[in-house]
């Protein structure tokens, strides 16, 4: 069965998946963290209370979270053409991936920041800390273990999303499993690609858990 596996195609697809997931995890964190902060600090009784802004942000986040990922993919590939100059391949796939995952991660960030002891924020304010530094020196450091484990979950989700996006034209392991495996009746190819995805998920989960545990000083 495995002699039919096209290893060159497999390694290329693996590279594409790592590329897609890597880039989109990075941008998911880049957009998700500020968005999560915004959701918390503008809420009632928080340091930058602005309930109007909070509601707008919440609606946007909920909208993106409610739209099924596959719909995001179909809608956003054309947008990718506009943003990155192509609507095919792994780079184009990162656009819907980020759009799908950033709001998801923003909610995780929000929860993590809300878990930070209010008393510690109060102590920081009582010491004359600016609100900006309350965010950078108190909220974020105190929530770091939760932010890391949340990013792990998001990254794992991105791996499965990337397999889906791949099928629609993004490339990567999902695409390889579908085209060279399923459609070509090549079971070996199907299993190898599937297995590699599982290994990737396990690896990410293990790294994330270890890191989060190390950071947690509670």
């Amino acid at each position: 069965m495995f002699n039919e596996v096209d290893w060159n195609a497999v390694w290329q697809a693996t590279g594409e998946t790592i590329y897609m997931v890597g880039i989109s995890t990075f941008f998911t964190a880049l957009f998700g963290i500020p968005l999560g902060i915004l959701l918390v600090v503008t809420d009632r009784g928080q340091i930058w209370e602005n309930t109007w802004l909070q509601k707008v942000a919440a609606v946007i986040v909920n909208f993106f979270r409610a739209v099924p990922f596959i719909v995001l993919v179909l809608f956003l590939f054309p947008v990718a053409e506009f943003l990155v100059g192509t609507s095919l391949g792994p780079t184009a796939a990162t656009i819907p991936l980020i759009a799908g995952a950033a709001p998801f991660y923003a909610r995780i960030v929000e929860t993590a920041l809300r878990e930070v002891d209010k008393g510690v924020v109060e102590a920081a304010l009582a010491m004359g800390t600016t609100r900006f530094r309350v965010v950078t020196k108190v909220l974020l450091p105190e929530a770091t273990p939760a932010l890391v484990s949340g990013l792990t979950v998001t990254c794992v989700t991105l791996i499965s999303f990337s397999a889906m996006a791949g099928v629609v034209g993004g490339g990567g392991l999902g695409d390889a499993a579908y085209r060279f495996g399923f459609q070509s009746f090549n079971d070996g190819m199907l299993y190898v690609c599937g297995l590699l995805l599982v290994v990737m998920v396990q690896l990410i989960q293990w790294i994330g858990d270890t890191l989060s545990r190390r950071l947690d000083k509670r």
Partner: protein
Amino acid sequence: MIELKGIGKVFPARRSSEAVRALENVNLKIGAGEIFGVIGRSGAGKSTLLRLVNGLESPTEGSVQVDGREISRLSEAELRAERQKIGMIFQHFNLLWSRTVWQNVAFPLEVAGKSKADIRKKVDYLLERVGLSERADAYPAQLSGGQKQRVGIARALANDPKVLLCDEATSALDPETTSSILQLLKEINEEMGITLLLITHEMDVVQEICHRMAVMEEGQVIETGEVEQLFHHPTHPLTRQFVHQVERAPAESPSGVRITCSSQSFPQVWGILQTAKNNGVTVNMLGGEVSEEDQITFVLDGAQEEMDRVLHSLEEYRLQGEVKSRV
């Protein structure tokens, strides 16, 4: 140093709750270098009062002045600068658990924009002062409650404040740890001349370190005065109740052992005390009557070994729970 004039504070109604009048016509004047205690039941408005002093809360009426500056009129930047000169410690310590002890104490210095060298010198000094130099690299999660509060105190003192606010700073600690923390606060007050405003619901705390005190009930200050004065002549019933919490040992026995027992176990305890008396221990029954809580308190004074023997006998009779504290 701190002056509150005609303070009123109303928390506005929210969808789920009615408006709360937390403070009403509060007037207080606290001098520089004084240790001032505010005592009151839960919900009396003590925390709200304290938080007015560093502007964490603003009054709906009246004025709050610290060192001659009207807190509510300061701009945001001025208020931050002022807060660096007003330290605060908390019942639940409120340390950053992601930072080590050392880094926690460094926090306010970083906020104040001090140089690395200054920070190092100051943090080392403060940890030495509160007796935690060896635990500098520990995380708060690895400390006992008393140690955490010492870190809290070191942190509050970092920018050489003129005022230290203590919100139930010892309420989460056992009696012995409470005494050591209060002792530390007292020393700091004497060494640095810092003004202490502390709130509590425990009369022992007020008695142990405060010069003057105020009693609060339902958002109002119902009695103010010298601690000694209020102890001997409480006028308001609530003050009397608080004083009752701590029946004071007679002045002539500053050292000794205090024993509290219920009227039920009185005969056995009395027997033991008679033996002790015969061995030269002075036994005083406080107040000479059974108090409301059905408790009788004795204060013993005499040779250490005799008193140890008393404690030992009480233990043998399984009365160890009756021993309240060594005075």
